[in-house]
């Protein structure tokens, strides 16, 4: 074993501690950055104070984002937001207030996380940054408070699962469809405590946005992190890519030919309840949502706009769109995407988590069937346990909104 090489996770963690580590070892690591949202920051700030914390370890490396219930839907939430604003002012750390966007998109837009970093976020979808060849891990509030205090976190170096996806993707089959396929293959919890490394020609062909969609749902697999091979990754700055050694140890290798893969969806009430969209074609929907940290970037909105251009969503359907960030929103305004969506009948809301997390801005009614580009369809996820949620790609959601029933984009002309 001693001669074996290292996985990407082992390499990145080793660079953040004072020794070379292997899967299974416990270590305390220095973090390059950390963040919390309005769901997790108030408890983290409280715990930080209780720990005796006076100053965060490095204000430039700690970010607060108000995105989960933003703008505040009630006075209780408004006061928690005030607590975050006051803390940011006191500590001199970065505050991304309402409208800035979803935490993960904001961190990437503002280059607060870069390839090779070890980043900790108090949000379960923090593995999204693995798209940047980063080791990024989600934690809860008290863990985050400890990072705020010490700049460090204890970790068990995870074993890695190697996922190799080869083949040319069909039109309208995206990173989201690959993520759903993996939820089906590995099941929720199938990668618990592990790192998922993504490789293969299909992955190398994905844009950063699509890599983020793929890596985002590592969280649904239960993984500690997901990390995408940097092959084919184009960024607006120079970086040093980290590849695994060819003789690295993996606990499991999954190799799939995704050439000809059909659009996928997750049926209620679990992200691993995955089928070809075709199986559910014709199921009536009344509510479609394009948003969340999985799928609300510029290319996602452009895909929806392309399908809806010059047309109108079906009578009786609401289509809610929440662009991932202010940057994305502005780009989608500038190129006409937002106008196309609004003309097609969409309701465009502010950048943020929106209705994905069931707090506000579009809670479904009893017995409604929702089709959403988000990552979770647990019972009650969108705020009503009597609604049913299907998860799919932006193309599938847009087309389903157009016809008022679940529709596969596989026969659409590009």
């Amino acid at each position: 074993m001693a001669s074996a090489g290292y996985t990407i996770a082992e390499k990145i963690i080793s660079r953040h501690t004072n020794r070379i580590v292997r899967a299974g070892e416990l270590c305390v690591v220095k973090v390059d950055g950390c963040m919390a949202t309005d769901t997790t920051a108030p408890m983290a700030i409280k715990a930080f104070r209780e720990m005796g914390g006076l100053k965060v370890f490095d204000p430039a490396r700690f970010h607060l984002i108000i995105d989960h219930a933003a703008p505040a839907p009630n006075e209780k939430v408004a006061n928690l937001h005030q607590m975050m604003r006051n803390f940011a002012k006191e500590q001199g750390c970065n505050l991304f207030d309402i409208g800035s966007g979803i935490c993960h998109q904001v961190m990437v837009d503002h280059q607060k996380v870069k390839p090779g970093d070890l980043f900790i976020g108090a949000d379960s979808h923090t593995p999204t940054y693995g798209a940047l060849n980063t080791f990024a891990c989600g934690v809860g509030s008290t863990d985050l408070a400890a990072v705020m205090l010490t700049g460090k976190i204890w970790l068990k170096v995870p074993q890695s699962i190697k996922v190799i996806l080869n083949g040319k993707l069909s039109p309208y089959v995206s990173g989201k469809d690959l993520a759903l396929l993996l939820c089906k293959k590995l099941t929720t919890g199938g990668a618990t405590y592990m790192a998922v490394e993504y490789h293969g020609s299909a992955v190398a062909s994905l844009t950063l946005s699509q890599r983020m969609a793929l890596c985002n749902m590592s969280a649904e697999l239960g993984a500690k992190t997901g990390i995408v091979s940097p092959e084919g990754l184009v960024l607006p700055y120079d970086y040093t890519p980290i590849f695994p050694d060819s003789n690295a140890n993996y606990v499991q290798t999954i190799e799939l030919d995704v050439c000809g893969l059909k659009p996928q969806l997750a049926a209620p009430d679990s992200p691993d309840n995955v089928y070809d969209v075709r199986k559910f074609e014709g199921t009536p929907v009344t509510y479609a949502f394009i948003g969340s940290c999985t799928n609300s970037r510029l290319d996602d909105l452009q895909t929806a706009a392309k399908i809806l251009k010059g047309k109108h969503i079906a009578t009786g359907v609401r289509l809610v769109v929440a662009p991932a960030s202010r940057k994305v929103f502005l780009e989608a305004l500038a190129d006409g995407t937002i106008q196309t969506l609004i003309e097609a009948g969409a309701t465009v809301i502010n950048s943020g988590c929106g209705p994905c997390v069931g707090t506000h801005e579009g809670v479904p009614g009893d017995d409604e069937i929702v089709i959403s580009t988000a990552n979770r369809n647990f019972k009650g996820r969108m705020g009503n346990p009597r609604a049913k949620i299907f998860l799919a790609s932006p193309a599938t959601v847009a087309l389903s909104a157009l016809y008022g029933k679940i529709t596969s984009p596989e026969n659409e002309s590009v």
Partner: protein
Amino acid sequence: MIIVAKAHVYGDNIDTDRIIPGKYTKTLDISQLAQHVMEDLDPEFLQKFSPGEILVAGKNFGCGSSREQAPLALKAAGVSCIIAKFFARIFFRNAINLGLPVLEAPEHDIQHGDRLSVDIENGIVKNLTTGKVYACTRLNGVMKHILAEGGLVNYLKKYGDFVTD
């Protein structure tokens, strides 16, 4: 620490939305969280459950969001410890960080209403109803110390930093 109490058994893949729905998480008031714990899974949970009793689940308990409000709500409702076949990793860390004991007993076949004796330090669960004994995954160094101090807040208050062996 040994806990002797009745088991309340639930199934696999119980996610944090079912433990505490997102709409109730925006508060620092612990009693508010406790009022809504498990309500989408079992609306009668709070009537059935007495403080000090044990929550038992199947695979992947606490999957989903990173919300620490989930273990906090269970702790506030009086859950003395949680036994599952395995836990979602963030939930597991959060529970330890709050000083709520969590034990993984991969092979357990505990039934609702069984009386259990749980040895937290040694990771042994005895089913007093059936006489069976289940081996649990033992906590590692750092986690053991954090739990012994009653959570990560107390641990860092005491040590000021992570203490490595």
